């Protein structure tokens, strides 16, 4: 596979894999780029697709480990678990089915919950702002968001 097609083929899945392992977006950008460069230098692009994808995830994992030297063991456990989940649920379509499942789950939530999610994840509202808008304490907002995340997790599990 030529380099352009290789990058186009793998960049989304690789970036999402890192994000699903708790890597923040900016670092995921950087590590995805670094990983793809390493792979191209080693001619991984000529390998079979599944082998190439496995190589990319392993390389991304190792690069991330280097960045997490202060809590390396925890990060290692987390990314290993993320790898299992990724292979089980997301590898064939780079997580698109998961995103679709989430969307359906969010659509079924009550208005108040969707508003809370949108204000938090889309608008970046702080817990304090949400508390004021939803007439809750900050603790209440934290509990609400925890419950919502748990409910969405369960909902997604049922749908995939």
């Amino acid at each position, binding site marked *: 596979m030529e*380099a*352009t097609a290789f*990058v*186009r083929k793998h*960049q*989304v899945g690789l*970036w*999402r894999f890192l*994000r*699903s*392992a*708790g890597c923040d*977006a*900016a670092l995921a*950008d*950087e590590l*995805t*780029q*670094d990983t*793809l*460069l*390493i792979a*191209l*230098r080693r001619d991984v692009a000529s390998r079979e697709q599944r082998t190439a994808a496995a190589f990319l995830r392993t390389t991304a994992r190792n690069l991330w480990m280097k960045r997490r030297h202060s809590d390396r063991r925890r990060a290692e*456990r*987390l990314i*290993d*678990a*993320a790898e*299992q*989940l990724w292979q089980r649920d997301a590898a064939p379509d780079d*997580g698109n089915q*998961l*995103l679709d499942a*989430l*969307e*359906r789950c*969010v*659509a*079924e939530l009550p*208005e108040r919950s*969707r*508003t809370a*999610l*949108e*204000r938090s*994840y*889309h*608008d970046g509202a702080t817990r304090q702002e949400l508390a004021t*808008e*939803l*007439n*809750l304490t900050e603790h*209440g907002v934290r509990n609400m968001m925890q419950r919502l*995340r748990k409910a*969405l*997790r369960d909902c*997604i599990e049922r749908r995939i």
Partner: protein
Amino acid sequence: MTEPNQEDAKNARIDWLLKERVGGETPPDLQHAVLSQLQTESETANPATQSSRWLAAALVVIGIGAVIAVSQISGARPSDQTGAHQDGEPKFIVWHTPTIVRTRQDIEALPKDTKQVFGINLSDDALPALLRLQKLEAIAMTVSTFEALRGGPLKPKTAPIFVTDDGIERLAALPKLQALILEGQLRIQGPGLVRLVKNTTLRELNLVSMAIPDKLLADLCELPLLALRLNGSQSFGDAGIKAIASSATLREVSLRGCTHLEDHWIANLSGMASLEALNLGGIGSHTIFTGIRLNPLPEPAPGSGVTDRLMQQLAPLPKLRRLSLSAGSVTDKGVQALQKIPSLRELDLGGVGEITAAGIDALPAGISSLHLIGHQQLDASMMQALLARTSLRDLHLGWCKGMDQDAIDNLCAATHLKSLNVAGWELSDADRKRLSALTTEVNLGKSKR
């Protein structure tokens, strides 16, 4: 049993999914960055030079800009679709959990006796498939923000998909259609919608987060609609409101979350002899709806919102039974105007913080259902005023603040209540027990102590 590390991974995963689908975060397009780097770098094994990181950072900035742009054109936010009557006449549709459909294939897979459908990003091409469902009573068609955000720079963005007048007019072949919700459907200009209402049994129309010209309202209001809910919509003005006021059939009107409201509009509506329910919630300075703009409609002038001055215009409405002023800027002085509406039975003052015991005393005597959700000063005098109203049957006091033990003690003696909601209160076990004994319909929320 799930391993703790897998729990952590699932939590990280749901955060990623939410940030990408709800937050609009998109994977970067690194093609140019990677290939440029590959061309220019030396043979060194170090894969990430400083310049490539700057390039990556630039791409992140570009990506964020793209996300913001997409969010601005992406259409409607999910909005309130409540309002279906559950009692009294007429009987409006009660939405259960309808099946979500996104494509023609989804619709074709539905059982023939399907009664409610919730369509996300349906196109005109998918709508003929609905005609197979001859028992269909209610259809919602929304343009999804999340769908429009899909894609990002890595593949062509999914542009918001709209239905048009031509498409929805075909639904006139559904013999049992009663309710239609159109949300964020900015291609609907009017003629097809008007013909649909004219040629079917459709009586409930929700036009949510839409641009609604006065002409469309004028045409619609000549037809026998029973409920017209314009939640979060705009573009209509004096002429549109006058058209609504002239309707001889409308029993319910909602302007909930509309960003523009003028005092004299309410004066016009006050002429509606058959109006039973009016929703003016979510309008004004207190609302969390005003100010959140995810749709591409132009920003309207704010109007006056729900204020004491507007309340003076609110009469007479001889049949009005339900009124929502939630999140309005209304004080005791404003609610005094409600005495001119003795027919009022259900009142929503949720998030209206300036109401005191004097305001409660001034409410019409016949009110049996009162929402004061989120009131910040529910002290003993306020509680005393509430409980002195022996006509009250349903009392919603969830997430209120300022209650002392006297207020709770007073509430525990309110044996005339049929339902009570005190979710979000910090109650002792003894108080929870006493309140539970009041009636079978008590919502105490979760225990906090």
